[in-house]
Every structure is written in structure tokens, then in C-alpha cells.
């Protein structure tokens, strides 16, 4: 497992502003990452990942048996950040009976006719389960912000209220972030463990990955022209992310910014941070109450008498 300090190191402290440009996505040059670059090389990372996977598999069994907590993992990154890689590695030992992934695609007309959190709320994990959101309601303060034509399609009322009600105004995005914080706070208070990961890659790394996809006939289907459109809005998206991350990293739903240029770094960190957070819940196989145990003795007698 990764050292426990890492959970702190990559956590965006509530109330701090982040400048993504200052993060070294390749992790070696940044002072923040230097502290562990001496300890963690690729083979160590792999070991740490495997260990986290097996601990996570057992922790998940207990989570399921305990049936009080649900785990929500939100995964984001610019196009080309290897979110699938994180999902594959984190979930590779996990029992699908207690874990699922929800990918959000283009909103349907029905979904647009509801408030912007509706469809995400419906997809939340129930107690005992873990759900990974591939994209999430954060698109509603990032994607939609960088592509303003999308906000026009949301049919929001425009002719009344304060500046915060005016779609697209700076106050509008702030308001949405406040609403998201309140939403997550309610979830956390009612038994959801929320962890959010932002996989930070460089623009150059994105270029390399797109080209690699396009040059591989077996992988080409994964490339979408929307990916290029996002690349062309790189700066707007980074800025929208900086604001969203800075405003929505909270004690009850922290963001972790993970260096994403090296494919082996982010999965190791994500698996370790997630596993530690679940272990911290202290869930275990439930103890059967004394009163019910009496029934067990009775049941055993019946079975043995057959």
C-alpha cells in the first residue's frame, strides 16, 4: 500500500485555490511529488497497487455485509486522461455484485427537463455498494461552462432573479458549486463516503495519446471527434476545472489531484487512497444481536434433529 501520508499529499485542502499549471503532471519535477519520488518507482508502485487491490476486495465484502455505508468515487480528467485505466486497476479484484460503474452520456430530453443533479442522484450507490462515476455532475460546472452552447439547451429560466440566476454569469457557476457542496454534504451525512479524483495530464501528453489511438486500428473506435473539440478548448476547460476544484473540495467530499502522465502512477494512488478511506470507516461483518442468536440455537437444534 502507498504510505498513508499520500492521502494527505494529493488531497486538495478545503479552501485552497489550485493552479493546475503549477502541478507537474509527470510528477518528477514538482516539489510536492519529490518527497515520494525517491521511495516510489514503478515496481514499488505495482506492488502497492496489488496489495491495495486485495485489501480493497476484502474491505468491499465487509462494506456489503455491514450495509450502512455506500461509496461514491467520482473520476474526472481532460480527454485522454486514462480514467478507464484507473477503473480497470482499482476494480480488478472487486466483486461486481457490490461495485458498478456509471458512465454518463448525452442527457436525454427527460433528463434535461429535470434539474441538473437529477440524473446523477438517481445513479448513486445504495448502502453496501460502491459506484464509480465516469464523468459526473461536475460536468455541469466545467464542460457546460467551456461549451456555452450547452447551457442554452438546458431550458433554464432566465428572466427573473439575481445575477446568480443568470445562466453563464460568474455568479451562476459559483451558485452551482455551492449547490453541489450542499448536495454532497447531505449525502455524506446520510452514509456516503465520497472521494473525487482529478487525473491531471499535460496537453502534450494528451496529444500523444490521441495520436496513439488514431494510429491503432483496434483502438480507433475509442476516439471521438468530441475529444478534439475538447482539446481545442483546453484552456477554457482547465480554468473551469481550477475554479470547480477550488470551490468544491470539502471535508465531506475532498478532491484528490493525481498526476496522470504516467499510466502507472494514478491507479496506484487512487487504489491506495480509496482503500485507506474505506478501511477508515471501520466496517466489519455485522455481529448478530443476542436476541437473534437465541433463534440460531433453536435453528441448529432443528437442523440436527432432522
Amino acid at each position: 500500500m502507498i504510505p498513508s501520508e499520500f492521502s494527505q499529499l494529493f488531497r486538495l485542502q478545503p479552501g485552497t485555490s489550485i493552479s493546475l499549471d503549477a502541478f507537474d503532471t509527470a510528477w518528477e519535477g514538482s516539489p510536492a511529488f519529490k518527497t515520494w519520488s525517491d521511495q516510489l518507482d514503478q515496481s514499488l508502485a505495482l506492488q502497492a497497487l496489488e496489495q491495495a487491490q486485495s485489501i480493497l476486495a476484502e474491505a468491499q465484502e465487509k462494506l456489503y455485509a455491514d450495509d450502512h455505508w455506500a461509496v461514491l468515487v467520482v473520476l474526472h480528467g481532460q480527454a485522454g486522461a486514462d480514467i478507464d485505466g484507473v477503473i480497470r486497476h482499482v476494480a480488478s479484484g472487486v466483486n461486481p455484485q457490490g461495485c458498478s460503474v456509471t458512465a454518463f452520456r448525452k442527457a436525454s430530453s427527460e433528463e434535461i427537463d429535470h434539474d441538473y443533479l437529477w440524473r446523477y442522484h438517481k445513479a448513486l450507490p445504495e448502502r453496501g455498494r460502491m459506484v464509480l462515476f465516469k464523468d459526473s455532475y461536475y460536468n455541469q460546472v466545467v464542460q457546460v461552462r467551456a461549451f456555452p452552447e450547452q447551457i442554452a439547451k438546458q431550458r433554464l429560466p432566465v428572466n427573473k432573479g439575481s445575477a446568480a440566476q443568470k445562466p453563464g454569469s460568474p455568479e451562476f457557476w459559483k451558485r452551482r458549486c455551492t449547490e453541489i457542496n450542499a448536495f454532497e454534504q447531505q449525502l455524506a451525512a446520510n452514509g456516503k463516503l465520497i472521494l473525487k479524483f482529478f487525473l491531471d495530464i499535460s496537453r502534450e501528453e494528451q496529444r500523444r495519446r490521441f495520436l496513439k489511438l488514431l494510429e491503432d486500428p483496434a483502438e480507433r473506435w475509442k476516439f471521438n471527434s468530441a475529444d478534439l473539440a475538447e482539446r481545442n478548448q483546453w484552456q477554457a476547460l482547465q480554468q473551469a476545472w481550477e475554479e470547480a476544484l477550488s470551490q468544491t473540495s470539502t471535508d465531506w467530499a475532498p478532491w484528490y489531484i493525481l498526476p496522470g502522465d504516467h499510466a502507472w502512477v494514478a491507479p496506484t494512488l487512487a487504489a491506495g487512497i480509496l482503500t485507506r478511506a474505506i478501511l477508515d470507516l471501520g466496517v466489519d461483518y455485522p455481529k448478530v444481536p443476542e436476541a437473534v442468536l437465541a433463534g440460531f440455537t433453536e435453528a441448529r437444534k432443528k437442523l440436527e434433529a432432522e
Partner: protein
Amino acid sequence: MLSKKIIDQFKVKPGSKVQLRSFDTSWDGDDEFKHLSKDELKEKAAAVLEQSRQEMFEAQRRLFAQDRYSVLAVLQAMDAAGKDGTIKHVLSGINPEGCQVVSFKQPSVEELDHDFLWRVNKALPERGRIGIFNRSHYEEVLVVRVHPAILANERLPGSKTGKEFWQERYEDINAFERHLARNGTVIVKFFLQISRKEQKERFLARLDDPEKHWKFSPGDVDERAFWDDYMDAFDDAIEATSTPWGPWYIIPADKKWVARALVARILANTILSLDLAPAPTSPEQEAENTAARQQLVSEAA
């Protein structure tokens, strides 16, 4: 790996008679395995399980990429027959983005106010995905038949009772599944069968192990009194609903390692039987890809 002959013997041919009472729940191999010791047999089963899993995971990638078919596997069994363990051992490690497991619990008041396929329909896998039903709409012709009080709770109109009523439910299920199959859902159904004696052993094991207590409820023992009624209900249901588009397999499950290997192999075969060739890219897409490539290459300069 496993011959077609071995696998086919567990398949319920449409229209054939089902008599679970004469089924060998402790089966662990045919004549062709006779020369193997117990340990060798177990090793062989483990190898079948692992190879099937790898093939399934690989096929899942193609199923997901192609986005044309979905796969629905239904698991039914008596208590303690190993449904959860089978799911865990056959599917742990599968890419969860393309796989969903749904456990059906007691229906809610809202669900009871709809027809009995409503909640099942909502939980179906979409194209490109594998869906596992841990219990399913078959409970509606099993536990509901064994305990008439549950049926009374469903607030159904109509006066049909007895054989005729269940016959209609089988027909409805067959029609529902045929509709799904025609629209791209490949259906395979497993009944994990343990003996009554094996169930007793497993209940006792749960009682012995505090970590397994949470899985046990004293009511489970009382339910054993209905064992014969359940066998009758399963006989009739499986017989009436094993169809070319939704075949049942009866899996000998007294030995967990046998059941897991068989389910994994049959599920893998089911997915591999599909034509999962990738959809050809359209000329528009090709043009877009070329333009994207040009832009990316020129950005480097």
C-alpha cells in the same frame, strides 16, 4: 477444455421433462475424467474456471466496443446453493463498466403496484453490457407459488388460479424473453442445484462461523419444510421456460468448484457464440479521424 457433450448434458432441451429429484447434485466428472484423482479433478476445474474467465473478459471488451448485443445471465437456486460465491468467483475482476449484477429483494409497494416484469425490465443490461440477475422474475413462479400469501399481496385482478394461472405466467415470461432475444439480448439461465442434505451442512457451517452469521436467518431453516414444494415449482418452471432463446442449465452444485467451472464455461461460450466483429467505421468517421490526426501532427511542429 470441456467437451460439448459434457456441457450439453446440463442443458434443458426445450420441451423435455425435468425431474430435479433424480438429478445428481454431486456430479464431478464423466467417464473421461475417471482416471483423475480428486485433487487432479479440482485442479482441472480451477483451470477451466480461469481459462473461461480470461476468454469471457476478452469477449466482454469486444461486446462493449461493438455495442450491439447484451447478455443476461439469470441465477436461481435454493438458499445456500452458492449464487453469491459463484458470482464472486466467476466475475470478480471483470471490467465493471461493462457488467452489472442485480439482486432482487422483496418488492416495494410501488413495484407491487406494477406488473411482475416491470422491475425486472428496468434492471436489464443495455447493449454492450453483461447483466447478472441474482434471483429474477422466476421468483414469481417459485417462491410466490410455494407461498400463496405472497400472491394474494400482489393485488391481481382476475379469477384464474392453480395450474392455469402458472401456465399463463410461464407464457408471459417466454414471450418477454423472446422479445428481448429478438432485440439483441442473449439470455442464459442457471439453476444451481444442491441436495437437501448439502443445504443442511452449509447452514450448519454458517452457524459455526461468526463471520457468516449475517448471511443466516432462522427462517431459512423453516423454509426447508417446503423443499418438496420448491422442487415441484422448479420442475414445472424450468420445463415450461427452457426455450431456444432462453435455455436453462441445471448445474450440479454440491461441489462449489464444479458449479463455478461449469457456469464460467457456459457463460463464456454464450458470449463467444456471438459475432462480435467490430462495426466498420463510416467514411465520415474516417474523414474526421484523418483530419484529427493531421491537426495533432501539425501541432508538434
